[in-house]
């Protein structure tokens, strides 16, 4: 990662944030008609939709597990979500992200309840600006709750990183492109266990410890926003009744 750009000035980041300040986040549950559960999430310049179908019989049949459900998360970026148009369809990056998100979600879903089933989680990034895997996983978790999928906890994701030698939370676009390290993390907020973790760049052990602390702190803040979004959906339903 190159550092041609000054990313910190007087302790403030390019967009005016402090080192431990998240970008604005907005979460709405139950936004789609067909899906069994759904969520719309804005996180800085990211706009993400998540939709859940299932549990239903897993196809093709050879993917079925006779003892438990499988989770098929499908992370996809819309062709128009990035500066240079992305060719439609999965690429290697999106397939890797789909895999690590599926694994993180499998951790919290009560899979044993649904042998031979699949739980399909569709994540569409329609506007992208750094941190889409964290945004996607966070939205997927809310959509799963909205779909009534039984879970031990509502997983949540946030990244930390290093820019201009400083550990900060939730990298923005230039920070991601020109920063020195990125550490996306997902946790189960109830237990603090780590469900997803990837790291690129360069961190000393001290910096890693700081970054992990910051990312987990961010997760807990966002976890509250998830729960608020779910409550609002239930309240609406209750009001309608």
């Amino acid at each position, binding site marked *: 990662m190159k550092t041609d750009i000054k990313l910190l000035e007087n302790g403030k980041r390019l967009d005016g944030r402090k080192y431990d300040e998240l970008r604005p986040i907005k979460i709405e549950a139950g936004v789609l008609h*067909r899906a069994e559960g759904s969520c719309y999430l804005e996180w800085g310049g990211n706009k993400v939709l998540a939709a859940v179908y299932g549990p239903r019989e897993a196809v093709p049949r050879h993917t079925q597990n006779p003892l438990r459900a499988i989770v098929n998360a499908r992370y996809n970026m819309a*062709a128009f979500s990035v500066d240079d148009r992305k060719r439609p369809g999965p690429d290697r990056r999106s397939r890797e992200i789909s895999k690590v998100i599926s694994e993180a979600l499998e951790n919290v879903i009560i899979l044993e309840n649904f042998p031979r089933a699949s739980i399909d989680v569709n994540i569409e990034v329609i*506007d992208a600006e750094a941190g889409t895997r964290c945004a996607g996983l966070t939205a997927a978790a809310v959509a799963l709750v909205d779909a009534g999928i039984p879970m031990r906890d509502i997983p949540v994701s946030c990244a930390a990183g290093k820019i201009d030698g400083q550990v900060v939370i939730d990298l923005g676009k230039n920070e991601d492109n020109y920063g020195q390290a990125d550490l996306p993390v997902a946790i189960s907020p109830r237990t603090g266990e780590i469900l997803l973790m990837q790291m690129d760049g360069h961190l000393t052990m001290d910096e890693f410890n700081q970054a992990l602390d910051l990312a987990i702190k961010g997760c807990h803040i966002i976890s509250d926003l998830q729960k608020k979004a779910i409550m609002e959906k239930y309240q609406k339903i209750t009001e309608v009744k």
Partner: protein
Amino acid sequence: MTITPAIKRDYIANLAKDGKRADGRKFEDFRNIEIETGIISKAEGSAKVKIGNTLVIAGIKMDVGEPYPDSPDSGVMSTAAELIPMASPDFEAGPPREDAIELARVVDRGIRESEIIEVDKLCIEPGEKVWIIFIDIHILDYDGNLFDAASLASLAALMTAKVPAKRFELGEDYPLPLKEPPISCTSVKFNGVTIMDPSLDEEEIAEARLTVATDEKGDLRAMQKGLNGSFSVDEVKKIIKVSIDTGKKIREQLYKSVGK
């Protein structure tokens, strides 16, 4: 191969006998249409269109590339539609199937053959460099009538798109040069009746489908018949007439929503 439950078919057909539809509309009524533009910051133009519960997003991206050898002075456009698994339990991931291909081709022809985009104004250097326009259509929620929703979203996105000249160091951004757009209206036929803007339930029992795109003057600009049922000549003419009338109303709403 989905088999529509006979009970649903009977219910909708019986209602139709009495001139009624399940959601209370008249045969020639559209559902409520919502059009919102400028929703994707990364796109040159974008629009979200809801027709009832059907939700479609269209995004325009532009790039600089080579023209086709047989039209060296014209910009190039291409349209893709994805029926992503988000929109329906019946859509699968993978390469586009016949339905998505027909959808993309009908929207593409509707724009291409009616020459909405003034491609001759999108030449940068004759024979060398022209603007390439990508129209990408994302179906997010499927409750029937994708043809009209996709077409309308594409038009709204095009009408609010800016040519990103600045990003390519070719001067200031400017609005995409466009002519007056035809409006697409889709009808289906079942049990002898024809209805406008089918919901998913109505599509599932439809025997024949007819999409008609008309312009401001009431002229025909594109048609596509679908499904294995048939239409009589009179039915076709009746559908065209209703499509012209409805097209006018939708055009007004489209112009309003894009600020014209």
